């Protein structure tokens, strides 16, 4: 049976791991290579790096980190943040990333997703959708870490990226990100019901029950979390044992 994945996400800025509270207040939580190694040894099913300043600073730092991490971690590594061109993807994959996650560039032109998935295969193309609730049962796609609204309906956009060859959707609720109040389960449910590709839940995890909700109530194939893991509140193993005790199938 396919296991539900737990993915720690490391937000990286200037070569250091940080996690923003609603993307503003940043705290330093250590060296990304070392952290990734700890996570993969500790049972993480995948590792995710999000280069949060990639849009306006030079990208060589993240390439270097990916290269070092990939030599030590033998679980899948996804890298996102500032992926705008085919060359960006080539550079990250050559450095050792297994998947890249595309956000703004996919919103700007969904054909970029098609081009990328044709060239590299759907297996390595993740589309990151940042969504914010705008009214009852309506969510809109945002870009630039939640600063720019796009007027695009999140559900429609999710269907579009699937049609254009995305292998997975990384769905972040901008309302919940950094709040520790749990995933937006309603949003997750509507997206997982409307698409046939795996959805990774993101944004808002504060307790282990939130992971359970994302998988069982939201229908997510994988759950991504940042701060609950890197400030040592929970170990990956504890999260998995907890889910297992509630009959959620995980890789122990």
């Amino acid at each position, binding site marked *: 049976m396919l296991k539900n994945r737990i993915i720690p996400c490391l937000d990286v800025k200037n070569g250091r791991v940080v996690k923003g509270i609603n993307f503003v207040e940043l705290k330093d939580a250590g060296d990304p290579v070392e952290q990734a190694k700890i996570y993969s040894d500790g049972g993480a099913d995948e590792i995710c790096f999000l280069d949060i300043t990639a849009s306006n600073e030079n990208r060589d730092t993240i390439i270097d980190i990916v290269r070092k991490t990939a030599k030590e971690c033998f679980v899948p590594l996804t890298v996102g943040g500032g992926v705008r061109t085919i060359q960006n993807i080539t550079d990250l994959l050559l450095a050792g990333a297994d998947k890249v996650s595309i956000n703004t560039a996919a919103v700007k032109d969904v054909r970029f997703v098609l081009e990328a998935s044709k060239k590299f295969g759907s297996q390595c193309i993740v589309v990151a959708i940042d969504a914010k609730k705008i009214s009852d049962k309506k969510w809109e796609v945002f870009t630039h870490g939640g600063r720019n609204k796009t007027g695009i309906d999140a559900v429609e956009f999710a269907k579009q990226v699937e049609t254009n060859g995305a292998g997975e959707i990384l769905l972040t609720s901008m309302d919940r990100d950094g709040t520790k109040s749990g995933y937006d389960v309603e949003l997750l449910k509507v997206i997982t019901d409307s698409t046939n*590709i795996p959805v990774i839940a993101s944004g808002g995890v504060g307790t282990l029950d939130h992971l359970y909700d994302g998988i069982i109530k939201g229908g997510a194939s994988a759950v991504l979390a940042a701060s609950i893991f890197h400030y040592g509140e929970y170990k990956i193993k504890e999260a998995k044992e907890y889910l297992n005790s509630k009959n959620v199938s995980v890789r122990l």
Partner: protein
Amino acid sequence: MNVTIVDYQSGNISSVINSFTEVAKGKVSLEVTSDIKKIKSSDKIILPGQGSFKSCVDSLNNINGLVETLKDFAITNKKPLLGICVGLQMFADVGYEEAETKGLGWIPGKVSKIDNQNGKFKLPHIGWNEIEIQKESKIFKDIKDKSHMYFVHSYEFIPENKSVISAITNYSSKIVCSIERDNLFGTQFHPEKSGKIGLKIIDNFLKL
């Protein structure tokens, strides 16, 4: 011992290179190349594969003499070859991803889309799944039945002769995830991304 990872410009093989480099460290000389001469003189070959069946077959065919060299190596001379993911799938006669495409034809069978029961199972099949070992396999030495391996695929290899199947995994149906026939090995899952257990499989192959 010289081991070659065949680099035929198809997909991302960095993880394959990294994991084999880690296991081979100080023991085996590892080369990543599409140079026919070097492939011919290798003791073992790894044939990775990412992207579609068609794109991988096309890329192999684009390198003059590569398909014949691989066939001489694995079929005529019966030297150890490990196919990973689409690398395994290409052993088949035919694949149906993108367009009907002729495979290498080393193991009779076809590669078709996983029946996801009308959307009940999401595709691609991504993540960690248990393998059920079907027969003793040299690359599964010290690997426990029901070990978890990392998968990413939407198509499956269906061999005609079931005796080549060394492991299956359950996703919507029983999917062939590993084959062994004499010197020919293939895994649908990615040992290079399957943590320590995956590295053990690589080690088993390098120790053959």
